């Protein structure tokens, strides 16, 4: 059991580290889109690592399968949420041009079409 415990310890710590960094980024990044990056993605990998860390402790395979489902649904739904919010911000024209080095669409910074 020692090896499994070590794996769990490392993965749980790494996962919570990523989640913490994601939260920190959300607090400290300058605008909506950059915050969205921090809110949706280090958090996703954090959750995956936490789940992977829990799996060795869960015992029978039947207890592990719901963890796999959680991971799958996180991977399916996280991009949808992120794209919905980012798309809404882009179309509403509320993206701050000061945070962009370049805008090839020439539209995101304006007031929309």
């Amino acid at each position: 059991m020692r090896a499994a415990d070590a794996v769990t310890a490392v993965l749980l710590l790494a996962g919570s580290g990523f989640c913490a960094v994601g939260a920190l980024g959300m607090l400290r990044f300058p605008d909506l889109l950059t915050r969205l990056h921090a809110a949706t993605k280090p958090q996703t990998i954090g959750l995956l690592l936490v789940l992977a860390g829990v799996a060795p402790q869960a015992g029978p395979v039947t207890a592990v399968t719901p963890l796999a489902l959680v991971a799958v649904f996180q991977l399916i739904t996280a991009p949808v949420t992120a794209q919905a919010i980012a798309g809404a911000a882009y179309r509403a024209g509320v993206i701050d041009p000061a945070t962009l080095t370049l805008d090839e669409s020439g539209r995101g910074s304006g007031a929309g079409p």
Partner: protein
Amino acid sequence: MTPAVRAAVSRLGMAAWLLAVWLLLWGRAGAQILIGGVVIVAIVYLVTRLPAVPTLKRVRPPALALAGLEFAWDLLVSSVVIGRHALHRPRQVRGAIIEVSARTRSELIVLAVTASISLRPGTLLVDLDWERHLLRIHAMPVRSQDEADSTRDGVLGTERRLMRALVTSEDALEEDESTGEDR
């Protein structure tokens, strides 16, 4: 395959996936659970008519495994990059909105590409112009034109890998017509 057969196959695939989720939620497979699952899936089918997901013509497992591995690696590396920016001078981080012309004509590949883009720290889909096959992507951190170009190359690379792994009928058609020429 005729369109009708294809739609039926894809609905059956959806039903199988629902049944798999049902079994995973129970965590064990018994006769009662299986029958209950089939009944539930049948009811869901009757109520929603389950969407016909576009089907694949061919899957290349080694290429798919490679795409998965590269995705996991990208996810890890760029999580670290974003994390470093969150800790170190976050106010000065700059992004960019870049346009990428999609090569694929398949909605399924675009779905896979956009999901992969949006899951990966550093890129986020903000708009999709399907008429012109244009993806608008917000990328961070981007400080110069060179970095924007390398992000674009990364997205195109993801698309190329996914197209190699998953062959769809739309893209197979495209390859025949354009004699494999890049556009």
